[in-house]
């Protein structure tokens, strides 16, 4: 099996303006400008097979969207080589565009004033989709989601969830080899997130579409990706399976406890008491990440029991969320 996306030693540099601060600075900027070079992507290589779903992760400003822009042909790399489906994307932007689909979480690419079905019909012409393929795709969509109420609704009247769903359907319409999804579940409620994950998974299974997914929501990663690639400050930190990654953190376990009261406030208190553990709180649980090579869960628990009345507890393996957080903070050892 040959790779659908092949990236070799890709680097991308930008020149950015150094703005000075304050009123005086603004006036000085008027007369002299100061540029510096920023390396947004630094020597990245990867190879992705047809049909994979790859989670492309990294903190804000890590260089994710720059990489995606290079893969979609919008940007030319400063150095290195990219092949997408055998094409050099930036040399054959339109040819490459025929083979890919792109969704940006908050930016719809559909015609604002038109009902979804009309957008589909225009896309059918733009991508020169045959009648048979088009009908087959619509049938598939109908079997996967309740598309009827969306079809005749103008995009501008849709909720964010409906719009994202529509954008995803539009991106898969011409049966592209690769679909890039940039934070597809951002700002959506829990049930819509689940719906969209199911849809992406089903389309990937049915059409064997390669999916490159960037997200900050580890729920997306858990639900969809076997493989993740992590970059930060333009450099590649990790490229392998999630399970493999979790082995790095085999000595870590998460102790979840429930206390009555303001959990966020307790979490802060506990952070002070247990400087070596990372503590977080959600609506139900306080999670304490314990590195068992340093201390034991039992020790931590008895420590906590001195000060709090623990009503309930759970012990879990390290979550993806915490693994990623640790990598962002400390890197891969």
């Amino acid at each position, binding site marked *: 099996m040959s790779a659908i996306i092949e990236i070799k030693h890709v680097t991308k540099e930008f020149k950015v303006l150094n703005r000075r601060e304050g009123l005086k600075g603004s006036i000085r900027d008027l007369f002299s400008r100061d540029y510096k070079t920023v390396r947004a992507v630094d020597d990245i290589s990867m190879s992705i097979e047809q049909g994979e779903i790859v989670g492309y992760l990294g903190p804000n400003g890590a260089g994710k969207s720059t990489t995606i822009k290079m893969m979609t042909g919008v940007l030319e790399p400063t150095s290195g080589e990219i092949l997408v489906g055998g094409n050099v994307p930036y040399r054959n932007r339109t040819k490459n*565009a025929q083979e890919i689909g792109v969704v940006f979480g908050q930016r719809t690419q559909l015609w604002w004033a038109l009902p979804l079905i009309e957008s589909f019909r*225009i896309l059918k012409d733009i991508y020169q989709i045959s009648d048979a393929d088009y009908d087959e795709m619509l049938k598939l969509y109908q079997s996967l989601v309740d598309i009827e109420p969306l079809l005749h609704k103008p995009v501008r009247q849709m909720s964010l969830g409906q719009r994202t769903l529509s954008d995803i359907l539009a991106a898969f319409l011409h049966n592209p080899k690769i679909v890039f999804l940039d934070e597809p579940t951002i700002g959506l409620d829990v049930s819509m997130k689940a719906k969209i994950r199911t849809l992406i998974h089903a389309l990937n299974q049915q059409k064997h579409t390669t999916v490159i997914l960037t997200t900050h929501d580890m729920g997306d990663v858990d639900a969809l990706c076997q493989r993740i690639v992590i970059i930060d400050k333009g450099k590649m930190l990790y490229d392998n399976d999630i399970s493999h990654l979790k082995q790095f953190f085999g000595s870590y376990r998460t102790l979840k406890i429930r206390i009555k009261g303001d959990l966020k406030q307790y979490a802060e208190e506990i952070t002070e008491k247990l400087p070596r553990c990372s503590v977080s709180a959600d609506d139900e649980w306080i999670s304490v990440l314990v590195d068992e090579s340093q201390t034991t869960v039992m020790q931590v628990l008895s420590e906590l029991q001195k000060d709090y009345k623990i009503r309930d507890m759970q012990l879990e393996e390290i979550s993806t969320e915490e693994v990623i957080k640790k990598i962002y903070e400390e890197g891969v050892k």
Partner: protein
Amino acid sequence: MTQKGLRFYLRIYGKILAQDLKSKMSYRADFIISTIGMICTNIAGFISFWILFSRFPSINGWGYYEILFLYGFSLVSLTPVQCFFDNNWSLRQYVYSGDFIKYCFRPINLFFYFQSEVFDVKGLGQLAFGLGTLIYAWVKLGLGFSVLMILKMIVFLLTASLIMIALQNAAAATCFWIQNSFYVLDLVMRFKDYAKYPITIFNSVFRFIFTFVIPIAFIAYYPSLVILRPDAVPVLSWISPVIGLVFFWLSYRFWMFGALKYSGTGS
């Protein structure tokens, strides 16, 4: 790679246009107010002429009806840019917000895809007003009528349109480099108001500038001469269709260059 032909693009444009019109009809109030606004603009221009000529008999040997002819001519030739290229006005907002990137992922011409998104109906109101003015001036001047004149008229109106489109494209595309490009567009739009005056009012330096650098003289003056002063048509009038095409092509290249350069930066 399959090269997509004119037919492919016309088909898509037709489809988008039909849908767009359909959805516009559901915003009738907006349509009516915009049309009134367009007509107000044109009436105000007309009144300015009228006030001016109530005090002054002529401008540089050009009488009331001749200037009116130029005015009508410029209005008609502005129609295509108003109707088909109005999305240029929103370009800087798409660029500023980063939404412009969404146009870069389709397997069709970027410029076409961007412009096809908006068809501005109110340009048709301007067309009607311009045609009315043009015909009124035509009759009052007693220019006569022949098929050849009509043909000439159509060719030169198209020429003028191309120039106007080129100017607007170029002005809109500056937003890929500078942030507050609204001033540039606004400036070009103000210049088009001057297109309706004969270029002979300027000294030679500015005649050169308005002919070759900011070619507003081609929006009404040079093409109109063919009809208005058929005895003394300068060479520039006859070659203006070629100049129109050249300027349009240059502006298109400039626009595309900016678009491809831009989409790289920002996040």
